[in-house]
């Protein structure tokens, strides 16, 4: 099967320029020139020694490079946060790391189970690399791994085996601190929100946080955990002192806590509408057919995911007392 055409180089360059023009001066495009590995993906430095590989809004298994990925370079080693939708994407990210630093990768942190964030893991399986995720991620991955492999195989046009699914070696409940040399990373396991196993990573030195899909920009937020939990979690983390965040989707860097505003508004409005629909005795199908959003023009993929979100919200909220 023919693969979807990747973005042309010109489009990518445009994406980088736009992203950097939009944000502050520390946001600089890095194009690796190192030849020891290839191809390396383009990354942006969003804070000192913190890099992001920007994704673009698209449907999983219909495109490459969907999620924002990143890495933080310490004096001792490198922490990678999310690995992309395929082994090839993971390798290109790994290559970008090696063109920027000679420090080894010591941690791969998966913010959650979704394949556009996690299927690049296999590119980092080697001695010295520890995979870290939320304590509930292994269960989610066990339930979904087979279907991810099946769909990734159909998309990539080749048969992927079970080695494509990499489980974490270390799981987190509450918070854990990682020392990567000269900087401390706080790994926080969240209560059910975007999924039931979201993790965020805060670099204490620069007050920059990778929030995974707790925050969406541009790409419509997708509910796969709990709409109530997600709203509560965003309220709670809004109080955390962070200067900048890297959302799971959208621009590579955004200000905090304003970055959470759109996701929070979308979810709150959706919850109000679905609750009202249930209260008036409306069923699931009619809710999906009728509930829209005042923000429908502001989000990409709205038509693709709105009905799904209404369904997820309905299935949760109908059990409220």
């Amino acid at each position, binding site marked *: 099967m023919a693969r979807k055409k990747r973005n042309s180089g010109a489009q990518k360059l445009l994406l980088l320029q736009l992203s950097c023009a939009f944000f502050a001066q520390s946001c600089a495009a890095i194009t690796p020139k190192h030849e020891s590995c290839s191809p390396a993906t383009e990354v942006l430095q969003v804070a000192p020694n913190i890099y992001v590989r920007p994704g673009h809004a698209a449907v999983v298994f*219909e495109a490459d490079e969907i999620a924002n990925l990143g890495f933080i370079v310490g004096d001792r080693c490198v922490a990678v946060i999310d690995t992309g939708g395929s082994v090839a994407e993971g390798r290109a990210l790994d290559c970008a790391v090696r063109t920027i630093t000679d420090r080894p990768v010591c941690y791969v942190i998966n913010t959650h189970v979704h394949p556009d964030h996690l299927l690049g893991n296999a590119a980092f399986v080697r001695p010295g690399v520890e995979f870290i995720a939320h304590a509930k991620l292994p269960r989610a991955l066990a339930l979904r791994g087979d279907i991810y492999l099946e769909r990734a195989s*159909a998309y990539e046009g080749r048969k992927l085996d079970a080695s494509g699914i990499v489980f974490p070696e270390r799981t987190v409940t509450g918070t854990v601190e990682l020392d990567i040399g000269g900087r401390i990373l706080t790994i926080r396991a969240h209560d059910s929100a975007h999924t039931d196993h979201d993790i965020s990573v805060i670099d204490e030195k620069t007050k920059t946080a990778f929030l995974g899909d707790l925050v969406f920009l541009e790409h419509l937020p997708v509910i796969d955990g*709990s709409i109530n939990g997600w709203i509560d979690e965003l309220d709670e983390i809004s109080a955390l002192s962070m200067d900048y965040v890297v959302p799971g989707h959208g621009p590579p860097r955004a200000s905090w806590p304003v970055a959470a505003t759109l996701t929070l508004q979308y979810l709150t409005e959706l919850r109000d509408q679905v609750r009202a629909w249930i209260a008036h005795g409306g069923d699931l199908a009619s809710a*999906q057919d009728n509930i829209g959003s005042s923000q429908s023009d502001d989000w990409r993929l709205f038509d693709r995911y709105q009905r*799904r979100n209404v*369904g997820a919200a309905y*299935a949760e909220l109908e*059990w409220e007392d």
Partner: protein
Amino acid sequence: MMNIPHSTVFGGLLGIANLLLMLAPAAGQATTVEEDMIWTGGLRQAYFGDRPITQSDDLIVLDVPKRAENAAIVPVSITARIPQTHERFIKTIYLIIDKNPGALAGKFHFTPKSGRADLAFRVRIDAYSPVRAIAETNDGQLYMSRRFVKASGGCSAPAGSDLDAAMARLGKIKLKTHGEGQLAEPVSAQLMISHPNLNGLQMDQLTRLYAPAHFVRYVKVSFEGEEVFSAETSFGISENPSFRFFFVPEGEGQLTAKVVDTKDLEFSQTLDVAAAGDQQLALD
């Protein structure tokens, strides 16, 4: 768009499909013939033998989304086009999803006391598949309303909800009525059951073992001791099963739901239906 590969069984039958395609009178029917090969190739015979089935939307109308955003929770609704009278009523509706493991999602039974044989619930759909609702009338006639749904992976994937919250509520039942109620008229009611409805198809990749099936297999709803709705259900029904149906309260009384799962756990719930004024019902 992603291509969904045909199953091997399907592939093996393609020769026959091509033959049938040549015989099909119109191009529009060609797709249907190919889509229906599991049905014509044995499913129909298994459930209904040689009994005649009228394919039309004259008796019941099946409503499902053409494309399901979440294959683990696909809303299904069936609307009856005749009232339930003692002389003529819909006795049973079968819901069959050809390509699901265990194609029969459920058999739903109605009585004249149902008032209307309308029904809404949610199913898992594992692959692009025809979905068919087949109604059997009290005099034994069969009518089929057929649709095609594009959905995949609904049986092996969890609904994507908060699993711990769902398990913590296991067996909780909500029974409620909707809208304005009037004595001796059909009233819309809903039975919700908190249950994971594990289908035994979700593999743990660490152990390579399947979580054992554990699902709701029987529900029965009665008003003042008389059955108004019952169902024999399989794991084709989504987690936290929800059924919307009708019943006719001739007077005040109790609506009672009884639920049994495959571990023979029993759950029940009752709802008082009281008269609020002349001919009006106080619902909820």
